């Protein structure tokens, strides 16, 4: 009984949240992306605009993401190193 009420309320809440967005296919705020598409080839010299955004215009986010992957591998190594001593 509680499970059915919960999922119906959650569904209605998410539906009301999605209906207040912009219509699908017609975005409103495109000033920064139009600048990236027009001037990306001239300033960075690469044909792939997504690569130039990931590595050139927003390179600090990629540095944070690479350090998260490094920390995850180190964490898994720490967990499975201490387990060998119990057996």
């Amino acid at each position, binding site marked *: 009984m509680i499970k059915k009420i919960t999922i119906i309320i959650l569904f209605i809440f998410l539906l009301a949240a999605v209906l207040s967005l912009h219509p*699908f*296919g017609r975005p409103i705020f495109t000033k920064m992306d139009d600048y990236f598409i027009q001037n990306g080839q001239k300033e960075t010299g690469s044909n792939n*605009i997504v690569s130039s955004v990931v590595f050139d215009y927003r390179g600090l986010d990629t540095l944070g993401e690479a350090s998260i992957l490094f920390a995850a591998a180190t964490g898994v190594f720490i967990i499975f190193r201490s387990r060998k001593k*119990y057996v």
Partner: protein
Amino acid sequence: MISFPFITVIILISMGFFALVFKKNLLKLVMAIHIMASGVNLFLITLGYRQGGVAPIFTNAPNLNMVLPTVQALTLTSIVINIAIVALMLSLIILIYHHCGSLDTRKRKLKQ
């Protein structure tokens, strides 16, 4: 009238949330978190769609009407962060099973 990708996002997030609250096996909780993360990644990409647009790559493009490229960069970062979260959760589950003997969240005994 809302279109099909947004309805898929709603179904994925609500399914993941329901499984996260009402299930008691630990592996099902990890799968629920991964389903919710996939729903959020899909939502990020469908926010940047332009009608009749192609991929923002100039190598062999059919025409010059392109979709927004910034959102795809954020989605790349989000996918890598979810890999790190799920990997650490799974290794902690292996450690919990070695110490407690069962994968149930309602049994709390600690066998030595």
